């Protein structure tokens, strides 16, 4: 399972340092809720999630109590840190599998957020969903409770690929789920994964076309990352499975990007495409724009005004911390100005609004020579660069990390 970063000790009272308050009015505030349950663990997954047998006695009900405690805790911590009252600009339930919970349970959590903080009218409220455990009723209940968006874990339309990923859902259920969501007025997104060992270019093309045929308004396409400690990493190490080939991954990205464009989808972040500005994920963009968010639940990450922290991973430890009235944070990082700039560069370069060159120059006065090279190599858009922003081309998006390393100097 993915290890958490190392950081400084986090205060038990969850209070934020004084500089977190600076300019907080200029930043939007978001909520992420981590639901750490899955029916089975997928072979590629290193997310913080648990099957029933791994939970050391934590039940779904007791977990929901803990989550509720953290919401109350967060309200006090934010108030006591001198931060202004802000309503949430988006709410996102992720996991794990949030839809392992009943719709009314998710609705109750949302209700508490509304009561304690408020949610801006019309704000994006999303849950991730496993196509196997949702239906018309489920979405009807979500919609009634204020949810307006659902992100469905499709991954692939090819049964062999899904099997390799240990995904158990029936591909046909994806279509049903999307239809049910749309019938209930929800915006819809599907997640795809490319580069699964054994997946051919044709397989991938079929998945992309299938996703496009569903009539969703948003698609995320992620290359498979072999995370250390996963079953997949072990299989590759033992030579049982071939390592994903980066060149082929690039080819698949290019193929998808072209198919998406033909279908009227535009990229707005390296791995995300939407039918228009209104269907971009506001929650996703908040991460890339360094806005403020509180991540609730075990292993969740939060960021407020240059302080990042992350909660203890196991639901049982999470429960203990909250039961004692303490912050569930494992550690935190108070970022220096330099580090905040570094992060802005590595995050904002990924979005279609682009990265202001002025931001790069504040950190690295020598950046100009790289920028001219990027233009020459077709990695960034020349016109945007001349008007002061770095906007990645398709090739540039595929090499974003290498560009960032150059820019950081």
């Amino acid at each position: 399972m993915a290890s958490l970063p190392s950081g400084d000790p986090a205060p038990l009272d969850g209070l934020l340092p004084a500089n977190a308050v600076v300019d907080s009015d200029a930043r939007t505030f978001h909520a992420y809720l981590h639901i750490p349950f899955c029916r089975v663990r997928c072979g590629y997954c290193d997310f913080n999630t648990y099957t029933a047998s791994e939970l050391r006695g934590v039940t779904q009900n007791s977990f929901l109590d803990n989550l509720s405690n953290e919401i109350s805790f967060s309200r006090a911590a934010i108030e006591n840190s001198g931060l202004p009252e802000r309503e949430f600009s988006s709410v996102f339930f992720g996991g794990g599998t949030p839809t392992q919970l009943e719709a009314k349970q998710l609705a109750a959590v949302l209700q508490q957020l509304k009561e304690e903080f408020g949610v801006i009218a019309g704000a994006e409220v999303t849950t991730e969903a496993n196509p196997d455990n949702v239906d018309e009723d489920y979405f009807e209940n979500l919609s009634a409770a204020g949810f307006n968006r659902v992100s469905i874990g499709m991954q692939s339309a090819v049964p062999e690929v899904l099997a390799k990923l240990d995904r158990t859902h029936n591909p046909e259920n994806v279509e049903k789920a999307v239809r049910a969501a749309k019938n209930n007025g929800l915006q819809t997104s599907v997640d795809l994964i490319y580069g699964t060992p054994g997946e051919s270019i044709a397989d991938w093309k079929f998945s992309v076309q299938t996703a496009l045929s569903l009539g969703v308004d948003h698609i995320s396409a992620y290359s498979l990352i072999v995370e250390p400690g996963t079953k997949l990493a072990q299989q590759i190490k033992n030579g049982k499975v071939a390592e994903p080939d980066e060149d082929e991954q690039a080819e698949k990205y290019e193929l998808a990007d072209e198919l998406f464009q033909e279908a009227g989808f535009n990229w707005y972040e390296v791995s995300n495409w939407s039918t228009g500005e209104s269907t971009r994920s506001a929650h996703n963009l908040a991460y890339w724009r360094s806005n403020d968010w509180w991540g609730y639940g075990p292993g969740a990450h939060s960021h407020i005004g240059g302080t990042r922290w992350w909660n203890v991973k196991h639901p049982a430890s999470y429960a203990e911390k909250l039961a004692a009235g303490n912050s569930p944070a494992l550690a935190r990082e108070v970022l220096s100005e330099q580090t905040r700039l570094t992060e802005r560069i590595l995050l904002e370069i990924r979005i279609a609004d682009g990265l202001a060159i002025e931001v790069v120059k504040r950190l690295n006065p020598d950046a100009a020579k790289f920028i001219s090279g990027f233009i020459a190599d077709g990695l960034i858009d020349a016109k945007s660069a001349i008007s002061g922003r770095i906007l990645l081309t398709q090739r540039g998006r595929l090499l974003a990390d290498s560009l960032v390393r150059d820019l950081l100097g």
Partner: protein
Amino acid sequence: MSPRAKTRLEPAKTNPDLIRNFCIIAHIDHGKSTLADRMLQLTGVVDDRSMRAQYLDRMDIERERGITIKSQAVRMPWEVAGQTYALNMIDTPGHVDFTYEVSRSLAACEGAVLLVDAAQGIEAQTLANLYLAMENDLEIIPVLNKIDLPAAQPEKYAEELANLIGGNPEDCLRVSGKTGVGVDALLDKIVATIPNPVGDPNAPARAMIFDSVYDSYRGVVTYVRMIDGSLAPRERIQMMSTKAVHELLEIGVSSPEPEPTKGLGVGEVGYLITGVKDVRQSKVGDTVTNAQKPATDALKGYKDPLPMVYSGIYPIDGSDYPNLREALDKLKLSDAALAYEPETSVALGFGFRCGFLGLLHLEIVTERLEREFGLDLIATAPSVVYEVTMDDGKEITVTNPSEFPTGKVKTVLEPIVKATILAPKDYVGVIMELCQGRRGVMIDMQYLGEDRVQLRYTLPLAEIVFDFFDQLKSKTQGYASLDYEEAGLAQGDLVKVDLLLQGEQVDAFSAIVHKDKAYAYGVMITGKLRELIPRQQFEVPIQAAIGSRIIARESIRAMRKDVLAKCYGGDISRKRKLLEKQKEGKKRMKMVGRVEVPQEAFIAALSTDGEKKGEKKGK
């Protein structure tokens, strides 16, 4: 067994009859340092508690690699039949790069302990040093070490030693430096068989420098062996080669920590401190005399160390150039054999052309520069010195392949060595193949015992400076040993092969190779670089050329994907730290034009065995 000496003989007043000066000749790994440690413990000069493993090897690098670079001398008391003797053990460097230093250490002794691993037998390098010792008329005491090992075959190797130096196999002592068995008997035998030093106490002082070491607190510490006369504190002394005069601030013996004395007399071994800060003022082999009453004749055998191998050393970060200069200046204080002068490379910027005694010396220097001075360096592939004569009669000395003239070359002379290789007879075939592949010419081959063979070859030095030793070791499963000595210059049919990245010549990759091998070399190096240079944001063509003629080409395809798909659950810290780590890795890259070339590529590209880059030589 003799007891520990109850009293010690006072330096400066010791009767030469009671002095024994000896060294230990051994192959690396045959346990010289461990044996020396055991002697220090047994004679009581180092108490058991403060005993560090390999006490005499002071530098970190020495201890890590288990080899001796700088020799030391230790005075130890030992009692035989109620009489206390002063034993001076002179620790000699054990590597071919330091043959000259070895010869001076031997000249300071009357006897040598020939230490051989009882499980492995004698090695080429030991033979070479044994030869030097016998040339110096030293009394040889053959000793088999590591008799505690299950694989030890003392009978077999005692026979081999007896064949080599005469005498009976039974005369060969058997010891274990590890357990201490037999070490006391060895000390007794040193007293019994090694002649005492002889000199004229009333003659003008003559002391031979066999080592000099730079100490950052005390300046240069010079180790000497008194031949004639005596030296005392506060005297003014003169170095006979340079005529430089210094005041003797401190004189003493190592036991093994320095102990100031009232002087040194005939036959004694000790150290001098003059406050001089530069070891070049105190050259190994030079003669120290009294400035007021100088000796007329210097002791024989002095020569200036001559670099055999050159390499360009460059800071990865160009702004480190002044720091590199300062570091070299400091290293030079303790390493008289290191030569350097500024050099500019189109590819690598400002750096230094450095001359070394050999490859181990090169590695030790670069490692010390990186470790002790915190520099990130690139060392270019080592090369030798070529004497080039042009058609118009102009003569050029080339120490850097990129300076090899492009005009009409009449002749090229390159240094030649005589190499001695010892190995079990089963490997004769592969060794001959290797030597012939390196333009070697066999001098002779003889059997040393039933199954061991000595092969002698003349080889161009250029053919062995790089990875010959690694190849020899790997082709013989580690059984072969190598020694070599200079054997003058010979004409060679040589050409310069240049390397181009993106059409730009990279001078640091230029090499001088035999005409018949140029094509194969071009294919090898372009192929190697294709593997060693990571893919860039653009395609990078690699070409090898002789003059304007391209002889080989490869290309590194542009990198297509380098981006993380997502930051799971907003874990930005993890992503940032990953990028910061990758950025650190980037610092170890050198920008050649727009191409990022990893540091290791500059040497690894030329290694014929791609799997084993950076493998340490000299073992």
